[in-house]
């Protein structure tokens, strides 16, 4: 093909355009590098925190005794210690407390959260729905120390409950409810109305359509919402600090008695004046991060396996 002849004017234009193209390329790379640096700061922050916890935690779990690397079995089987104890003890009571309070809290909170989510997505119309949604959002944003204070005032100060695992579980319940409600509602709204209509047009009652068609369609997403709320609650300290009076020394499974948790142990040990206890805080933190990581892994597994695509 014959090249069209380019006049002088066109050539000048072309070179100006080329120059602009060069500037654009440079600007593009600069912007890209700045964004990369900002992202790196965000990612590094997480890596440094986790890395620090892992390194220090591992030295609690695998202490060097007489020049040999050993595994501290007692760390997982023993409860914690009192300040100045020769044996710094372990995390057993913390794990038991965290899991038990989480289980009780979730047992109450998940049905409430799910019910709220279904109500908001399937039934609430107009103003009432907006008000409920606003309150749920407020609840989700409530500083968790206020949750602890609330439980203390309503249940403990009034002597309805003692400082106990149950009181702590109620605090976690308040943390879990709005997270489940808002995340599950968002997921239910992803279900296209055409599926609801298909069910209704077959002569199915509305509640059956919700239970047998809408929920199964997004079961993976619902499970994700619940697991995320559990991960969040597992890391809470403030609602427990004011309600459980957990002792680092005892393992307790009775929910009506004082109970400790991994987060409370970390708080107690980290603020201790004894270096041996400070070291225990790292071990507790590593276990806590592992528990939360397991929830996250479960989330990834569930969402990867059961994804609604259309």
């Amino acid at each position, binding site marked *: 093909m014959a090249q069209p002849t380019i006049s002088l004017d066109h050539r000048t234009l072309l070179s100006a355009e080329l120059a602009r193209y060069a500037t654009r390329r440079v600007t593009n790379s600069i912007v890209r590098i700045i964004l990369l640096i900002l992202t790196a700061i965000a990612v590094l922050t997480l890596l440094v925190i986790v890395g620090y916890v892992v390194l220090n935690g591992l030295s609690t779990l695998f202490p060097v005794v007489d020049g040999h690397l050993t595994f501290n079995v007692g760390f997982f089987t023993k409860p914690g210690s009192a300040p100045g104890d020769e044996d710094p003890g372990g995390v057993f009571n913390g794990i038991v407390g965290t899991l038990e309070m989480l289980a009780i809290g979730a047992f109450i909170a998940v049905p409430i959260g799910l019910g709220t989510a279904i109500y908001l997505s399937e039934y609430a119309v107009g103003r009432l729905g907006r008000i409920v949604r606003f309150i749920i959002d407020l609840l989700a944003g409530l500083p968790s120390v206020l949750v602890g204070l609330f439980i203390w005032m309503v249940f403990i100060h009034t002597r309805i409950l003692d400082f106990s695992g149950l009181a702590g579980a109620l605090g976690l319940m308040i943390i879990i409810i709005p997270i489940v409600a808002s995340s599950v509602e968002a997921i239910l709204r992803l279900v296209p109305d055409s599926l609801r209509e298909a069910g209704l047009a077959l*002569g199915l009652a509305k509640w059956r359509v919700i239970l*047998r068609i809408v929920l199964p369609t997004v079961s993976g997403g619902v499970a994700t919402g619940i697991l995320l709320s559990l991960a969040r609650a597992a890391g809470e300290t403030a609602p427990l600090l004011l309600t459980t009076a957990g002792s680092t020394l005892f393992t307790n499974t009775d929910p009506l008695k004082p109970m400790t948790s991994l987060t409370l142990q970390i708080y107690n040990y980290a603020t201790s004046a004894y270096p041996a206890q400070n070291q225990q805080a790292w071990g507790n933190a590593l276990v806590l991060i592992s528990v939360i990581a397991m929830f996250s892994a479960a989330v990834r597994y569930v969402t990867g396996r059961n994804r*609604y695509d259309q």
Partner: protein
Amino acid sequence: MTNSPMIAPPVPAGVSTKHNITRKGIALTVRNLNAYYGTSLAVGDVTLDFSPNTITALIGPSGCGKSTLIRCFNRMHEVLRGAHAEGEVILDGDNIYAPDADPVRIRRRIGMVFQKPNPFPTMSIYNNVIAGLKLNGGSHSGINYDEVVENSLRQAALWDEVKNKLKDSGASLSGGQQQRLCIARAIAVDPEVLLLDEPCSALDPIATLKIEELLQQLVEKYTIIMVTHNMQQAARCSEKTAFMLADDKRVGHLVEYTATSEIFTRPKDKRTEDYISGRFG
């Protein structure tokens, strides 16, 4: 699932289940029907008689209210927030808009197929077909699901294509197959009337042809009412055609309703003539 003993047909000798019965469809009578979205009227004062075992096409330009109207025939219109309808739709002597009429029971007698195929994505082909029976509660002991699945899929002309993969997901089928699966699902609950809201508008011409052929067989058993924006389709498949048009207040009205051969050759109304001759819409 025949609900009223009044319309239960006599069981012919030698027929083992009610799903094998060739039954006449039921007439549907519409009197002074008004459909609203919130307070605004969308379809005004429609009066119509649908003959049993007949395919009736509802045609008209976009926004004329034909989909709104057909959704009033099984009380699906009111499912949308703020929507409601007034007037009478009489199925076999019972007004489905009577205060004590249960929309859930009505929808089992008047099945519906939608514009976009909507099989349940988490269910197998098999479970999609029996969803209406299996999920509706009550006793299922008398139902032979295998038989229902085979009969419904045969009626929907899908059996031969899926009989070896009934456990596969309903979403794995092609669009045309999905739509026939939706037809099978609708007829599995044994309705008397079948409503189709632009059933072929999401399908290619070959799949469309298959559905049109299928309707000619289904009309032996059911009264069929179909919304279509495709005039050729109305001319090809229907015996009767109703033409709707929105007025300047965007309220849809019935303009003309007569035999399909009549409406496409000798329309009585000037507006019908303009529409079918392609002058607007």
